[in-house]
């Protein structure tokens, strides 16, 4: 590889992205496709060509877990490790797979054929356990499938020749309300918006009282209006509509279904937003795990251009130009946070920005930018079409409209359920066939854990807000293990920028492991509680602030699940003291009492 000229494959990529350093993440992602990793010389070459410090290029490459600076195996196998995958037995499957192929997790096989590891939730909770092989998602793993995949890899069969059914991702729509049940032609919402005029659309949006579906629940009309009023900056003065399709929150997969089967509605919504805000460009930030959707989405965009729904004079409206491009993420949950997402769109490490300024005044490339969730934008399209009053008539006073809920875990019928806001947890549990639930984790790892006595509560911003996840835990599950899984998720996904979160998430995960290994005490629980206080108060972004939520909730509601793991003693060391002398004992040949620890 040493004499190899990296320019051969890098130049066409650079040309396609116009040598623009703000496309660095996309350039790196495509460059990696050549050899499965980014060679040091390729980093050098890109730094020179893009006129960036080398550290910027390597810094970005090392940030994203789907970008590699060392060669992984030719087949990179990642087992999705959300708690729902665990409940479906992913750990045993991974062990079996490793035994089949004689590999260890985290270490590429010596012959370079295969590497195996875990990855955070892949958004396939309704059809897990899931895998990613070289970035392609495989669902419904079983012993048979894992064995067959081992054989395919050993036989070096190309991924394109693997059984097609392994790659099937079903929508699993179980309950349709006005959004999923609607029947609209592509472009209809845009034409309705053009007829209303930009002010008219904003007025309808205000009337609808639509609130963001990505988690924070900010009023969408306020966002749009602020961006519309904010002045553009400098040369490339334009406004942007960004669709947050990062969907990284464990247990959430409703955006996946919208992107797969309602993409026209989403693109209509983005275009409507562009019209109302005065933006000329839309960007979709699609999580790397959903890469399999890319060809279909690109084809859809192409068709819309031909149909006049994108490009110049959209739908014949002179002066309204709007186009959409798709950026792929590369395996970083924090990039769902809107300012980290913008950093990533600009080709940098996904580290959240200091706010203010908010994206609506200074977002992508310093310009006024609206960041909205996929579902929010789909809803906006229906509002443009049917009006704000129609939408406000659904749901509750402060939570108008419907909500898509991603149901997974111990239920008979996992999948997507659309309800008007205000639906009770009980009702959802009934509809999905959750027999003996002891808990529901709502809105993902950073959401809330509800116990049986709270099942009467309602899903709405007034009561239990949600970004859409609904993970059900049957009576036989250990809620401590649920929280421990989430604590590792946050430790893995912390971007490392601020100390309370970088160190705090690691310490909490370590303490949870200590309790799990049977050497925990009340002291360790107190430690977790005091760490939580620091992290919640001092973390830079929502990730660190929410990282202890699942632990605190389960500690409060399932304390015995923790106490079962504790030793009755006041304190236990976090490692085996006597074992830590073993090497020294062996080398000195000693076995006297001084060479051991009594209790």
């Amino acid at each position: 590889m040493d004499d190899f000229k990296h320019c051969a494959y890098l130049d066409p990529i650079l040309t396609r992205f116009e040598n623009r350093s703000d496309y660095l993440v996309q350039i790196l992602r495509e460059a990696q496709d050549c050899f499965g990793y980014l060679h040091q010389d390729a980093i050098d070459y890109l730094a020179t060509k893009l006129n960036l410090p080398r550290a910027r290029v390597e810094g970005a490459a090392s940030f994203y877990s789907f970008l590699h600076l060392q060669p992984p195996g030719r087949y990179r196998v990642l087992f999705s490790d959300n708690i729902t995958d665990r409940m479906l037995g992913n750990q045993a499957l991974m062990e079996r797979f490793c035994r089949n192929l004689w590999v260890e997790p985290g270490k590429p096989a010596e012959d370079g054929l295969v590497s195996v590891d875990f990855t955070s939730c892949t958004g396939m909770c309704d059809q897990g356990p899931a895998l990613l092989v070289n970035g392609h998602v495989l669902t419904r793993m079983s012993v048979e499938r894992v064995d067959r995949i081992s054989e395919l890899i050993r036989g070096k069969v190309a991924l394109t020749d693997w059984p097609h059914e392994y790659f099937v991702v079903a929508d699993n729509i179980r309950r349709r309300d006005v959004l999923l049940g609607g029947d609209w032609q592509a472009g209809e919402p845009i034409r309705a918006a053009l007829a209303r005029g930009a002010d008219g659309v904003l007025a309808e949006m205000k009337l609808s009282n639509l609130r963001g579906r990505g988690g924070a629940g900010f009023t969408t009309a306020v966002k749009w209006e602020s961006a519309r009023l904010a002045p553009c900056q400098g040369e490339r003065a334009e406004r942007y509509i960004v669709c947050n399709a990062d969907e990284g929150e464990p247990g959430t997969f409703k955006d996946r279904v919208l992107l797969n089967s309602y993409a026209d509605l989403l693109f209509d919504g983005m275009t409507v937003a562009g019209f109302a805000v005065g933006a000329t460009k839309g960007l979709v930030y699609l999580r790397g795990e959903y890469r399999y959707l890319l060809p279909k989405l690109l084809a859809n965009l192409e068709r819309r251009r031909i149909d006049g729904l994108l490009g110049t004079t959209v739908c014949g409206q002179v002066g309204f130009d709007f186009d959409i491009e798709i950026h792929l993420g590369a395996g970083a949950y924090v990039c769902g946070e809107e300012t980290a997402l913008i950093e990533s769109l600009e080709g940098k490490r996904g580290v959240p920005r200091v706010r203010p300024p908010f994206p609506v005044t200074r977002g992508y490339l310093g310009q006024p930018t609206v960041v909205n969730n996929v579902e929010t934008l789909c809803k906006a399209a229906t509002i443009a079409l049917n009006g704000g009053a129609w939408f406000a008539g659904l749901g509750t006073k402060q939570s108008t409209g419907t909500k898509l809920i991603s149901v997974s875990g111990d239920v008979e019928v996992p999948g997507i359920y659309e309800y008007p806001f205000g639906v009770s947890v009980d009702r959802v549990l009934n509809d999905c066939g959750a027999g003996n639930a002891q808990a529901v984790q709502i809105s993902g790892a950073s959401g809330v854990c509800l116990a049986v006595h709270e099942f009467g509560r309602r899903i709405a911003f007034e009561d239990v807000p949600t970004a859409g996840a609904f993970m059900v835990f049957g009576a036989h599950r250990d809620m401590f293990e649920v929280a421990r899984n989430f604590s590792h998720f946050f430790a893995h996904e912390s971007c490392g920028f601020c100390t309370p979160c970088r160190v705090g998430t690691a310490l909490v995960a370590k303490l949870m492991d200590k309790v799990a290994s049977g050497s925990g005490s009340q002291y360790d629980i107190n430690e977790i509680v005091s760490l939580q206080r620091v992290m919640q108060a001092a973390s830079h972004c929502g990730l660190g602030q929410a990282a202890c939520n699942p632990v605190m909730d389960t500690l409060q509601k399932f304390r015995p699940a923790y106490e079962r793991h504790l030793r009755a003693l006041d304190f236990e060391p976090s490692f085996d003291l006597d074992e830590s002398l073993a090497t020294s004992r062996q080398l000195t040949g000693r076995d006297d009492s001084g060479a051991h620890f009594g209790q």
Partner: protein
Amino acid sequence: MDAMDAVAVKPKVRVATTSLAGCFGCHMSFLDIDERLLELVELVEFDRSPLTDIKHCGPCDIGLIEGGVCNSENVHVLREFRKNCKVLIAIGACAINGGLPALRNSFDIGRCLQEVYLTGLNVENGQVPNDPELPLPLDQVHPIHEVVRIDYFIPGCPPSGDAIWKFLTDLLAGRTPRLGHPLLRFD
């Protein structure tokens, strides 16, 4: 006169200190409270400490531990302190994080011993010392809170004399010790 009596009647707070895998820098910094030592000894008396040369710790109110845990003796001393001290304080980076000695954690202890005593340059007829009097090294250097419960931590490498003074006077006065930003700033 009353004040003198009151001090005389009130039993002094007993303090023990030790240095485990540390460099005695924290103890030196402790001495940097200078003339305030005289004020301190009005309030406390020292039990086991390098300052007194008392070899074993009796019942104490406060124990100050410098350094991390790198060998079996460290563990025994630390356990003795925990058993006898109502309040145990980790002082300095090594006690809190393992510090400089923990840099050896990326090396295998067995291979270190072999290289130093058996296979290294200029070693002839080497032998790994095995006298039972000698403490055995642990395979890793640990912060002290991984071995016993620790109540307070004074960060710094070393913490300044002022920081130690502030911490101890807070503690003796019954206030939750609080080092403000100037005392926690190291650059």
